[in-house]
């Protein structure tokens, strides 16, 4: 059963399909915002299949093992977190004490693997990208942890299933002032975790030509793209579970509501990405350590006061 969960549903296969469709939705909405037609629905599938079939070039001064291992670890970490979130949403008592902390650190593994892989490739543009990714990781984790702590205090439990159960009894955390502030902070942190504009300084297509992914090609690049697509599916579900009552499968129209919430979050992320220019890395750090950390602390205090 665990193997089935990990490989098929809700793990690797399901997360891949859902993530690629989400990625396509993002591209399509972007195209419509720019008055273009946009790609057909199978576009992201074609991209990934094509990348899997291409040659993997290894740069001359790269460290081969680290360079090739990084995408595999990133991909399996994304699949693992997708599996855990899916299983714990279906069965609230399946978790263990402190699994929300495990989520938090598995969610950072894809970023860390990007840093390691880019550093191992030995290219100048990759190095700049990886140094920026390190800074951004340090920046956005601070408000993200504060918001998660706020939720843990509010639900008075360290388990993921417990938080969803609390929301089933007391109403979603989002429907309070502290919840709304926390949701905004978490949404911007998710934007940075996915590396989308305005927080795409490490990738920076027009400036670094791909940045952290610059030296990757073929199947290795495809694995990174897949890992990112899976995170694109996982992180909104994570947000829904923490703030908006989770995916309540047994509850009549629960799945329909979950899909609508999911689409709303995706479209919000896409619109933020299409209406903002890229920030410099120092502006990103100021933004996360200054304004957003302050907002997160305000949300925390409000939630302690019970508002």
């Amino acid at each position: 059963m665990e193997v089935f969960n990990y490989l098929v549903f809700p793990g690797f296969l399901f997360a891949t399909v859902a993530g690629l469709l989400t990625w396509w939705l993002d591209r399509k909405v972007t195209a419509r915002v720019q008055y273009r037609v946009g790609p057909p629905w199978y576009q992201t599938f074609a991209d990934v299949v094509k990348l899997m079939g291409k040659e993997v070039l290894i740069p001359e001064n790269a460290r081969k093992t680290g360079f090739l291992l990084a995408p595999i670890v990133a991909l399996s970490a994304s699949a693992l977190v997708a599996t855990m979130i899916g299983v714990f949403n279906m069965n609230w008592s399946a978790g263990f004490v402190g699994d929300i902390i495990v989520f938090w650190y598995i969610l950072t593994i894809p970023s860390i693997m990007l840093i390691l892989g880019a550093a191992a490739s030995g290219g100048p543009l990759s190095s700049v990208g990886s140094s920026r990714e390190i800074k951004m990781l340090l920046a956005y984790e601070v408000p993200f942890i504060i918001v998660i702590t706020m939720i843990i205090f509010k639900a008075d439990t360290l388990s993921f299933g417990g938080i969803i159960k609390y929301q089933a009894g007391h109403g979603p955390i989002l429907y309070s002032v502290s919840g709304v502030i926390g949701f905004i902070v978490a949404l911007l942190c998710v934007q940075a975790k996915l590396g989308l504009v305005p927080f795409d300084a490490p990738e920076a297509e027009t400036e670094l030509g791909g940045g952290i992914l610059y030296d990757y090609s073929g199947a290795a690049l495809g694995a990174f793209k897949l890992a990112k697509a899976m995170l694109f599916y996982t992180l909104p579900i994570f947000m829904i579970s923490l703030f908006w009552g989770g995916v309540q499968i047994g509850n009549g129209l629960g799945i329909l509501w979950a899909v609508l919430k999911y689409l709303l979050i995706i479209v919000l992320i896409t619109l933020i990405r299409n209406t903002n220019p890229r920030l410099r890395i120092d502006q990103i750090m100021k933004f996360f350590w200054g304004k957003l950390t302050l907002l997160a602390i305000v949300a925390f205090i409000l939630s302690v006061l019970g508002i």
Partner: protein
Amino acid sequence: MGLKTAALKKSIWVFHVACSPCNNCDIEILDLLTPRFDVERFGIILVGSPRHADALLITGVCNRHVTPRLIETYRATAKPCVCFLFGACSCQGNVFKGGYNVPRLIDEIILEEDPNAIIVYIPGCPPKPEAMIAGVVKALSVL
């Protein structure tokens, strides 16, 4: 036709190699990404790194300084890849042919590096965006 080729035909990522062009062709290339032509409909996007690319879009004449860089870029591209020679200059040298700074034409340089390279010529000064799309269709039919 295998799955790989089918996927490749639906998703061509292009890297733009500017070998000292006059910028006229480059502006025509940008037109392809605008709402009027929107080549993302066919899965064609511009990427920033030759390692991600399936196609090299080469504009301009190749002078002595650019030649080693062009060869390096071709080596850095993951195979299979297609070379589009965009504009009269890159196809046959245009008015610069035989000039002191144009020792060889671009197709000669690429064929010397890789005899099996797929090269598509898109003539014109500059070619229309429609000509570019027609060139891509022709290249895809031989893949």
